C-alpha cells in the first residue's frame, strides 16, 4: 500500500490526495466502508492506536454470556480490512499533532503525513470517579477490546464484582456477569437503574427483573474509597456502608476524546464541534462517532454513528450529504429484561404514560402538543419498537434545499 500512497502523491502534484481517518473503531471503519461504496480509487490511510482489528464495541458488554474471548470478538483483522476496503491501515500509531493550515499530521515517531481530508474518529474515554483509597487505581473499565481481554482474565476465580454506575453499560455488564456465575452489585447515586433514560416505572421493573436474576443494587449513594482487602477489595460508600468485591468495574459514562482537536485549535465543546456535514471549524477536518458533537448533539450510540458514517462517506466522495437522524431507539442488552428506549429530545416538555404488567412495559412520552416524542418498551412490548419509532419525529430532519 505504501507504493499506492506514493504514486498517488506523485500524480497529485501539490494538491494532497490522501484521505486520512484516525481511529479504527466502528466510526472509523464504517466511514471507510461507506466512502469506498462511492469512491474506490482515492488513496485512504487509516491510523490506529491499537492493533486496528475490526470489532464491535457494543458486543463487549454481552460477550461473557456467549463465552467469547477477545480474539473471537475480532470480526476482521486489520490486514483483512486493508485488503477489503482497500486502504492502508497503520496500527499502533499515535497521532500527536494536527497542523490544519499545512494539512499535516505528526506521529509519535516523528513522521508526518499530508492529508486532503482528515476524519477524526477517536472515540471516547471512560469517565473516572475521583476515588480515594489504596486500590483506586485497580478499578477497571471496559472501553475497548484490550480492556475486555484484561477484564475477562481478571474474572477467573472471581465470585463478586462491584459495578459503579447503573446506566446502560453498567446494567448490561451486570446481566452478562450472571452468565459466568458471578454475583454483581451495582452502585449508583440515583434512585433506580437507567435513571436518565427511563421513566420511574420502567426503571423499577428493570431493577426487579435484574434482582430476580441475581443482581444486587445499592442506590442513593456513590463510592468514596476502594481499598485492598484480604480478599479482593473493600468499597466504602458515601452513606458509610461497605461492600466486598473481587473486582471493581467502573461504568459511569464516556467523555469524548478531544485533546488532539483542541490542541490543533479546532472548536471543541462537549465533543469536536461539527455541522451537519460533519465538518469541524477548520477546512478539510471532519469528526464522526463518539468524539463528535454533531449540530449540538453528542450521542455515543451505534445508530447515530452509522447515520454519520453514511453521510460522511458520501461527502468525502464529493457528494455533500448532510447527516439526518431518524428517531433512534437505543437497545439495552439485558436479556433478563429486554429494553428499548427512544429518549425524548433533551429539554422537551411533556409527560410519560406508562402501562405495564409482569410481562411487559410500554411507556410513551407525549409532548405539550400531544405528539409522541419518545418511548420505552420492555419485555414482550419490545416487539412494538418499529411501529412506535415510525411515529416519533426525526431528531435531525432532512434539510430543505
Amino acid at each position, binding site marked *: 500500500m505504501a507504493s499506492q500512497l506514493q504514486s498517488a502523491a506523485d500524480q497529485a502534484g501539490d494538491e494532497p490526495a490522501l484521505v486520512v481517518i484516525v481511529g479504527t473503531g466502528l466510526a472509523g471503519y464504517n466511514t471507510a466502508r461507506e466512502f469506498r461504496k462511492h469512491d474506490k480509487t482515492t488513496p485512504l490511510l487509516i491510523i490506529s492506536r491499537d492493533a486496528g482489528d475490526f470489532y*464491535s464495541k457494543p458486543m463487549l458488554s454481552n460477550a461473557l454470556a456467549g463465552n467469547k474471548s477477545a480474539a473471537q470478538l475480532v470480526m476482521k483483522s486489520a490486514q483483512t480490512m486493508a485488503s477489503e476496503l482497500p486502504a492502508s491501515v497503520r496500527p499502533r500509531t499515535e497521532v500527536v499533532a494536527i497542523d490544519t493550515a499545512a494539512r499535516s499530521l505528526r506521529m509519535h515517531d516523528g513522521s508526518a503525513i499530508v492529508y486532503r481530508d482528515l476524519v477524526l474518529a477517536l472515540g471516547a474515554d471512560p469517565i473516572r470517579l475521583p476515588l480515594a483509597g489504596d486500590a483506586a487505581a485497580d478499578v477497571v473499565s471496559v472501553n475497548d477490546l484490550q480492556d475486555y481481554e484484561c477484564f475477562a482474565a481478571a474474572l477467573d476465580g472471581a465470585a463478586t464484582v462491584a459495578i459503579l454506575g447503573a446506566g446502560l453499560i453498567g446494567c448490561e455488564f451486570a446481566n452478562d456477569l450472571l452468565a459466568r456465575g458471578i454475583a454483581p452489585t451495582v452502585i449508583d447515586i440515583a434512585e433506580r437503574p437507567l435513571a436518565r433514560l427511563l421513566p420511574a416505572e420502567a426503571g423499577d421493573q428493570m431493577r426487579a427483573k435484574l434482582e430476580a436474576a441475581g443482581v444486587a443494587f445499592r442506590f442513593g449513594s456513590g463510592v468514596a474509597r476502594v481499598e485492598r482487602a484480604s480478599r479482593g477489595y473493600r468499597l466504602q460508600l458515601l452513606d458509610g456502608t461497605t461492600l466486598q468485591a473481587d473486582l471493581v468495574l467502573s461504568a459511569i459514562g464516556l467523555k469524548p476524546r478531544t485533546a488532539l482537536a483542541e490542541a490543533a485549535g479546532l472548536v471543541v465543546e462537549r465533543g469536536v464541534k461539527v455541522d451537519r456535514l460533519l465538518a469541524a471549524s477548520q477546512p478539510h477536518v471532519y469528526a464522526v462517532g463518539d468524539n463528535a458533537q454533531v449540530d449540538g448533539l453528542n450521542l455515543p450510540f*451505534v445508530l447515530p454513528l452509522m447515520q454519520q458514517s453514511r453521510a460522511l462517506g458520501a461527502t468525502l466522495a464529493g457528494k455533500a450529504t448532510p447527516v439526518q437522524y431518524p428517531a433512534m431507539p437505543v437497545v439495552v442488552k439485558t436479556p433478563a429484561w429486554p429494553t428499548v428506549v427512544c429518549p425524548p429530545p433533551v429539554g422537551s416538555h411533556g409527560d410519560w404514560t406508562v402501562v405495564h404488567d409482569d410481562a411487559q412495559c410500554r411507556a410513551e412520552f407525549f409532548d405539550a402538543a400531544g405528539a409522541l416524542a419518545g418511548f420505552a418498551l420492555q419485555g414482550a412490548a419490545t416487539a412494538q*419498537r418499529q411501529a412506535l419509532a415510525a411515529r416519533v419525529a426525526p431528531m435531525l430532519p432532512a434539510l430543505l434545499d
Partner: protein
Amino acid sequence: MKTYLCIVCGFVYDEAAGMPGEGIAAGTLWKDVPESWACPDCGVAKSDFEMVQI
C-alpha cells in the same frame, strides 16, 4: 434453521424466530428476508450481516 450476526452491533437474526414485530414471520429464511431490510439495532444493510455457524 440458522442464525445470522450483525457484524456492527451484534444483533442476531434467528430464522426460527423471525421478527414478527417487523412483519417477518417465524421460520423466514435469511435469503427470503427483503434486501431492503436493515438491522433494527444499528441500521446496517442486510449485506453487512454475517452468518454464524450453529
